[in-house]
């Protein structure tokens, strides 16, 4: 188990290092970082001071080390627009994004997994068909189309809900629905397959043959085993959630980090983009790490064996 955790930590650290390196390479390829991080309108003496401070005339590897040091001290440069530190802008926006993504994730789990398990236990039923239809939905309808259709129906035609903004809880309903509907279908479909697979295993038949009540077979034997692949999928879904937030926040003018990244990319506010890239990557890596650990807890085989 210690080995498992250490291996995962090493991998996570390596991944973050790769992301930082990626940011460094892209930054250097795209032009002079002094210009990039200070903006094109920066006065010459500020540029010179910046160059001297970050050693931009040093060899590349020294610059790379300097860049690492800079990142480690949470210095991501300043935003082109109002000269405030990029990290502050990003941190300000995080609560708004969490206000959408956390409820969406909870909805996905709370509806998706039970629906999938129910469908697996009642195959060929109406609910089962519904789950399959929902998953087709989730796979094929892009979130921007879904979001616009929801706006068209619930905001424009029916006029029940606001189409954008952040002033009340009602404003959050459509964005959260857009973020979660597709994922619910996918998760339900996946839970269904995982459950059906587990139900076909010999140990389930054994448990049934020895006369355990069906309810107990499901709770004690089937669900814990189906949980392992489902948890893996949740790790993948976090990335989709962040990507979805980018689109959804744009559609509904929701002032979160997704909206921030789109606006910053459009304005080429590179310091902010770089900061967002690193913050999102770091949180993804941490989230995946947590998923890996819970995976280790769920699957006793992983606890004993060293990770490969």
């Amino acid at each position, binding site marked *: 188990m210690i080995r498992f955790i250490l291996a995962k930590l090493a991998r996570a650290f390596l*991944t973050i290092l790769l992301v930082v390196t990626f940011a460094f390479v892209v930054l250097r390829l795209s032009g002079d970082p002094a210009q990039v991080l200070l903006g094109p309108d920066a006065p010459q003496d500020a540029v010179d001071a910046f160059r001297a401070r970050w050693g931009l005339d040093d060899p590349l590897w020294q610059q790379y080390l300097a860049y690492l040091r800079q990142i480690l001290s949470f210095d991501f440069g300043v935003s082109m627009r109002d000269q405030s530190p990029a990290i502050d802008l990003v941190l300000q926006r995080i609560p708004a994004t969490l206000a959408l993504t956390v409820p969406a994730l909870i909805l996905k789990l709370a509806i998706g997994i039970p629906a999938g398990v129910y469908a697996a236990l009642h195959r060929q039923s109406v609910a089962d068909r519904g789950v399959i239809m929902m998953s087709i939905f989730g796979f094929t309808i892009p979130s*921007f189309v879904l979001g616009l259709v929801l706006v068209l129906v619930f905001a424009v035609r029916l006029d029940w809900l606001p189409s954008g903004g952040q002033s009340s809880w009602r404003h959050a309903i459509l964005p959260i629905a857009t973020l979660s509907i597709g994922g619910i279908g996918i998760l339900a*479909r996946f839970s269904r397959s995982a459950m059906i697979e587990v139900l076909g295993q010999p140990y389930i038949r054994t448990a049934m043959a020895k006369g355990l009540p069906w309810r107990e077979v499901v709770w004690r034997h089937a669900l814990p085993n189906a949980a392992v692949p489902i948890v893996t999928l949740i790790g993948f879904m976090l990335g989709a959630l962040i990507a979805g937030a980018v*689109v959804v926040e744009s*559609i509904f003018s929701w002032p979160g980090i997704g909206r921030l990244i*789109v606006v910053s*990319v459009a304005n080429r506010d590179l310091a902010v983009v770089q900061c*967002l*890239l690193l913050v999102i990557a770091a949180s993804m890596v941490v989230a995946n790490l947590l998923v890996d650990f819970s995976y280790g807890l769920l699957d006793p085989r992983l606890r004993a064996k060293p990770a490969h």
Partner: protein
Amino acid sequence: MTTATVLPAPHLLTRIRLKMPFLVVLSMIWIATMVLVAIFADQIRPYDITRMDLMARLAPMGTPGHLLGTDELGRDVLSRLIQSIRVSLVIAFGATILSAVLGTTLGFLAAQFRGWVEHLVMALADFQAALPFMIMSLAVLAFFGSSMWLLVCLMGFYGWERYARIARGLAISASAQGYAAAVVQLGANPRRVYLRHILPNVASTLIVSMTLTFPEIILMESGLSFLGLGVQPPQSSLGNMVGFGREYLTRAPWIMLAPSVVIVLTTLSISLMGDWLRDRLDPTIR
């Protein structure tokens, strides 16, 4: 015997397909239509995509001469849709092939050389899987600005890590025991082993993965274009049509609906066909 590893991917839609096999036929007809539209876009387009008809702005669907209506500048939606299908399909095709070639090559290199090469490839794959692709694309587009070439190349990185993992895994199991080791033992050089033996044997699995990444690339490209950061005007893609149509959601929803329907039907068709292909080609089933 080699033990075949069954991919944990759910057998999406399998049951529906079994009940209604004609859906696969419909999907194929739709995909074929889309490909034909993309190839003959110049011939079948009723109007030039930039031709404005200021007398007929925001004309609804079914208007004579403008079957799918017109947009805010009086440009014909059908013509723009046809051009968009071409652009989106070209990007998706190009990117799918790029990412399959890139990923498979890296996976084979990892399998052949093992050691640090393998560690590097797997670390890169972890990196790719850890960072949401959309965020990475946005960062690259921010730093370099958007162009058609950059977009195709960028999308060409979408999903490479899946091919790399599959190709590496299959090549290692083929080399450890079985036909690949046997051919090496005959004195074949690595190029022959990989191109003549391993590649044909793993091709079916790779093709199935391609049918999975293809619709995802369409969705990714249209998502970026929707945000105004992918395909740039005056060129048009399905996503960017939806993006511009969004402004007129209340007054002219057809601008946005037509490309949305095309996106949904195309991704659905390819998913259905991919599912069918998997059943046909997957050696673990046979």
